[in-house]
């Protein structure tokens, strides 16, 4: 064929480059997960946590990255989902799937109560309100001992099961969590590529312009908030079933800090950002452990450098490679 000799022409390579840049973060995340699966042991546990966090961060990305809003209290929705599942499965013998549904409903109800009044206001009211709800839910988890077990938490939570088969081995759990993350990523990408997602991106760009084009800004913000709360509730549920234990500390404010780090390091507003961010940030403490006392310092410095030189995070690093800049 006459065209075949052009296959490796510079034009062809240039046309392939965007595809490669997009695929690279996925490939890296997949490679690390694959290695963990083969290597087994402690790395599987680290990656399982990373995948659970990835679900949480995918939801956060929808609200903060796509819709451009701020929330400091999504740990509350993870706690509601997690505790809902923990209590209903361990104390009342519910199947995990039913407990998950109930926990998510609870999280959505609370998100609606917090979000409806505050999302109508411009400015940082929602950020403040979410910060408050995160602290309130934490306090409830500590104080309502009869149900939550207080600081001692709840142990003996059954593992995830599908149709009578419990997923027991660490490796099986990793595969299951990878499938959940794939589904969560896929759904978030579909949402972004739709009329709904375009409306969110419009709100992030200019609320006034969005309103002038007929977008009900408060309504779309609330929907984005609820969807991201549902992802958070799912992450909370996954956590308690995988670990078999829950205590207030699990869903403390540090969860928000860690998730923010993953979101910004991975690439806020990108499709691959939450996954690559969760995987890499989960590995960092292991990597920096050799530095002993200085590990927090190195960790912080690395993060600042990343945000300065790649503000869109790891997911967009490949785009910064030489030769990728056009015009």
């Amino acid at each position, binding site marked *: 064929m006459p065209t075949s000799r052009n296959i490796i022409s510079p034009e062809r390579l240039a046309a392939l480059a965007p595809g490669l840049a997009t695929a690279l973060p996925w490939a890296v995340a997949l490679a690390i997960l694959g290695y963990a699966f083969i290597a087994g042991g402690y790395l599987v546990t680290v990656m399982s946590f990373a995948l659970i966090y990835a679900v949480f961060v995918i939801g956060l990305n929808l609200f903060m990255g796509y819709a451009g809003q701020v929330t400091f209290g999504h740990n509350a929705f993870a706690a509601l989902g997690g505790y809902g599942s923990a209590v209903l499965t361990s104390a009342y013998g519910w199947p995990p799937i039913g407990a998950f549904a109930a926990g998510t409903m609870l999280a959505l109800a609370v998100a609606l109560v917090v979000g409806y009044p505050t999302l109508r206001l411009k400015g940082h009211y929602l950020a403040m309100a979410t910060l408050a709800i995160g602290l309130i839910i934490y306090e409830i988890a500590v104080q309502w001992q009869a149900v939550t077990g207080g600081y001692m938490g709840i142990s003996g939570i059954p593992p995830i099961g599908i149709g009578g088969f419990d997923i027991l081995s660490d490796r099986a759990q990793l595969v299951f969590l990878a499938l959940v993350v794939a589904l969560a990523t896929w759904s978030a990408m579909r949402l972004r590529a739709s009329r*709904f997602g375009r409306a969110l*991106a419009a709100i992030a760009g200019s609320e*006034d312009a969005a*309103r*002038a*084009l*007929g*977008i009900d800004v408060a309504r779309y913000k609330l*929907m984005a908030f609820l969807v991201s709360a549902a992802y958070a509730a799912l992450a909370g549920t996954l956590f308690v079933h995988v670990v078999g234990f829950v205590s207030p500390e699990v869903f403390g404010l540090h969860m928000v800090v860690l998730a923010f780090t993953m979101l910004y390091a991975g690439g806020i507003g990108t499709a691959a950002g939450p996954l690559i961010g969760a995987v890499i940030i989960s590995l960092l403490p292991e990597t920096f452990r050799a530095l002993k006392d200085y590990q927090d310092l190195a960790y912080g410095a690395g993060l600042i450098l990343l945000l300065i030189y790649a503000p869109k995070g790891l997911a967009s690093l490949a785009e910064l490679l030489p030769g990728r800049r056009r015009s």
Partner: protein
Amino acid sequence: MTLLKLERVTRRFGGLLAVDAIDLNVEQGGVTAIIGPNGAGKTTLFHLISGFQTPNGGRIVFDGQDITGLPPDRIAAHGLIRTFQLVQLFRDLSAIENVKVGCHLRTRGGIVTALIRPKSARQTEAEVDATARELLAFVGLADHGALPASALTYGQQRLLEIARALAVRPKLLLLDEPAAGLDLGGREDLVAQLAEFAMDPDAPAMVLVTHHVEEIPPGFTHALLLREGGIVAQGLIGDVITAANLSVAFGQDLELDKAGDRFFARRRAGA
């Protein structure tokens, strides 16, 4: 038939009467220019019509429905679309995605549709894509669709904002100083585009705010001249845009030239 009717619309800011009992009629397909110096109340009037501010008094009727005090998105849903004095694009989105957002009101579908993506949704999406490409080509940005809006020149951003507004298929388009910040070439391109538009029977009715008579496109038939929130003159453009009226509105002795269908004003020599 009257498309937009303002009856004694008033807006006060503290003791300041920004818009003082303004009456205005815009016919179906009509083209009106609102002219006046800074602080005459032009932009406030736009905010009141488009719902970004609420009048203290008076009534606004659009397409037979009272829209006074409705929020902007509800007013937009009636087919009344505005642009902004300072371009308000979705800067991180590509040019074509900006225009696609303009199709929001004409399409349906929420979270469930997005996830399931039924055949009807794919069809709609293909139509939205085609509409967006058409409109980009219409304003001369066909080759710039993939660029982020922030990468366009200011003149291109102005045109993109208009293309995005047209994607709504509005009945009335409010243009707030569309030529502000453009260089001479950009201004002339825009005026030519709007002139073409003013003659097009399929184009929406337009109300254009400006404080330069040079920016009034040929083909605009009516004008409203404002000063300090009140009306100096109103009616057919030839009767309103006169040296005497402009001198009153802008508070200095002005002379006016007319070349073709364009106006040019300057201070009278020796005045």
